[in-house]
């Protein structure tokens, strides 16, 4: 299954983003490739610090320059490289063609503007509607995201709303201009499960209604399983596995994905005894191991894993995995060596 420009709305190729700090360069995103098909949902999972958020910010070029910089790569949106666009062109795309929902509903809304104003703002910018029209549209949006008595709520400030409502307002903002692509960075992490269920349901419904493509960032494998069509698993700034959602949950390839799936305590099945675990912890971004970043924690790592970084390569069933195991090389290597710190 190869991805071609015609069917994908967004294609990220070899994206590399670094932060230049006092302590040195942090390669937050270090070679990321994936694509999103029109109307479909891509999930990006990975542990904290694996570069999920930075990937999404890089796409919209919202990084804090000059500390964070996109070093190379391409972000092809509808056939055009966003990284080559001017600032002005980017402004026209943001919020209009591509919009974004952030993790923290508490802090992502401006506390000094009413919810209505904040929704209306992007409508006025992109659709050039007058104040009154924009306001009406924003009330409509609030209704759409399921906020009761939207006229009243539109005049309220974010602090007057609960977390779930705020996230709905965020969704209303991001969907106000019918974007073709919606990026949701951990849209429900800060919410309770019952609220999370509401929000996920809402996103799913709106996506179906509007035909929006969706990119969901999360560390919750359950969310991925429920929402996505495709999954990219990230580890230390790299995509280690990129596959169909079914494949990932039924037949994970990368040892990290396998470990991850096993270490989640499940609420709907009994696990007797201890959880299977991944030993060790995520390496410091300043001090990444050479070769495969997961090698020090990998139960099956061999010499080559410590020495050389594998490519994100297609396996026989169409998945992409960044692991030596699925290469011809593997057989030639010797016994597994573990190098725990």
């Amino acid at each position, binding site marked *: 299954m190869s991805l071609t420009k015609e069917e994908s709305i967004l294609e990220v190729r070899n994206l590399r983003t670094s932060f230049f700090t*006092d302590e040195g360069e942090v390669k937050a995103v270090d070679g990321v490739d994936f694509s999103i098909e029109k109307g479909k949902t891509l999930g990006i999972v990975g542990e904290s610090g694996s570069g999920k958020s930075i990937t999404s910010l890089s796409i919209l070029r919202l990084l804090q320059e000059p500390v964070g910089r996109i070093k190379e790569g391409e972000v092809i949106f509808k056939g055009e490289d966003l990284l080559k666009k001017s600032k002005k062109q980017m402004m026209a795309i943001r919020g209009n063609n591509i919009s974004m929902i952030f993790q923290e509903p508490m802090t992502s809304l401006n506390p000094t503007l009413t919810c209505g104003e904040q929704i209306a703002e992007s409508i006025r910018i992109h659709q050039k509607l007058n104040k009154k029209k924009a306001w009406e549209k924003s009330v409509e949006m609030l209704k759409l995201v399921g906020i009761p008595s939207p006229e009243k709520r539109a005049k309220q400030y974010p602090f007057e709303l609960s977390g779930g409502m705020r996230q709905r307002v965020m969704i209303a903002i991001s969907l106000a201009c019918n974007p073709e692509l919606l990026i949701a960075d951990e849209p429900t992490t800060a919410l309770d499960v019952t609220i999370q269920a509401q929000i996920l349901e809402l996103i799913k419904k709106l996506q179906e209604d509007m035909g929006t493509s969706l990119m969901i960032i999360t560390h919750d494998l359950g969310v991925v399983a429920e929402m996505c069509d495709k999954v990219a698993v990230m580890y230390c700034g790299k995509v280690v596995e990129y596959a169909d959602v079914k494949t990932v949950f039924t037949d994970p390839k990368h040892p990290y994905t396998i470990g991850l799936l096993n270490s989640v305590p499940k609420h709907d099945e009994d696990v007797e005894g201890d959880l299977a675990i991944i030993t060790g912890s995520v390496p410091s971004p300043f001090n990444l191991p050479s070769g495969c970043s997961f090698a020090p924690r990998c139960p099956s790592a061999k010499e080559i894993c410590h020495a050389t970084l594998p490519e994100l390569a297609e396996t026989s069933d169409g998945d992409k995995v960044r692991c030596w195991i699925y290469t011809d090389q593997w057989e030639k290597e010797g016994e597994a060596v573990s190098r725990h710190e």
Partner: protein
Amino acid sequence: MDHQPQLETMAVNPARVGNSKAIRMKSFYKKLAKNKAAMVGAFIVIVFSLLAIFAPLLAPYDPTEMQLSKKLETPSSEHWLGTDDKGRDILSRLLYGSRISLTVGILSTLLGALTGIILGVVAGYYGRWVDSLIMRICDVLLAFPGILLALAIVSVLGASTTNVIIAVAFYAIPTFARIVRGSTLTVKKLEYIDAIKAMGARDTRIIIKHILPNVLSPIIVQSTLYIASAIITASALSFLGMGTKPPTPEWGTMLAQGRSYVAQAPHITLFPGLVILLVVVGFNLFGDGLRDALDPKTKK
């Protein structure tokens, strides 16, 4: 004048205290050392402290000796910075003056900070009526416009170096108390305080071992900034004739006394003015730098 730089400094941000200690401690010195402005500030402060300490060795003349025949001399090889309206050597007076001005600045800040810290920690830790009471007192103190409080205190106690220190210190109390209270409140909420409480630790132990060290950094920053404004407040008191007594070569007094000669002998006000400016700027830069270095959020 008596600025209120306390408003500029942050109370401890709950997220910053424990959370980013990691980046903090390690890179604190690095950051400080990298901050050129802070290093300039530190340099100025250190140089003046040394000058103050070694003033008797360095000063070419007796700072109070008048040579009326040599009054208002412009800078020369004999008197590097010239002489004042009574023929006293300005350099010597400035050198000796650094002892007084720095003492006034530092002692009053220390005194005020110490009282403020105690009040603030007690108020913040115990809360309830203790907190209300202490904060009301601070509000009352703050309600007296800056220098008026100092003036009133000096006028009651009489004008002298000691009383100036007391007056300026008095004004510092609510400032510090508020900051410390704020920090204490945030630190108090941190889980390690609960953990140690759950261990069965006494309040005194918690306050001294666990709260104080963690509220100290904003205080240190505040102190350096306050020293600067204390020096200026002291000089304002001198201007109003309520500061240190002549012939004490306090900088503010020198500046205040020389002001009649602004036109014919600008050097006698220029130098004290410059020195005050320099030291105050020095403390301010250093304080700012400290703050930035202690604040993990600053990048670059």
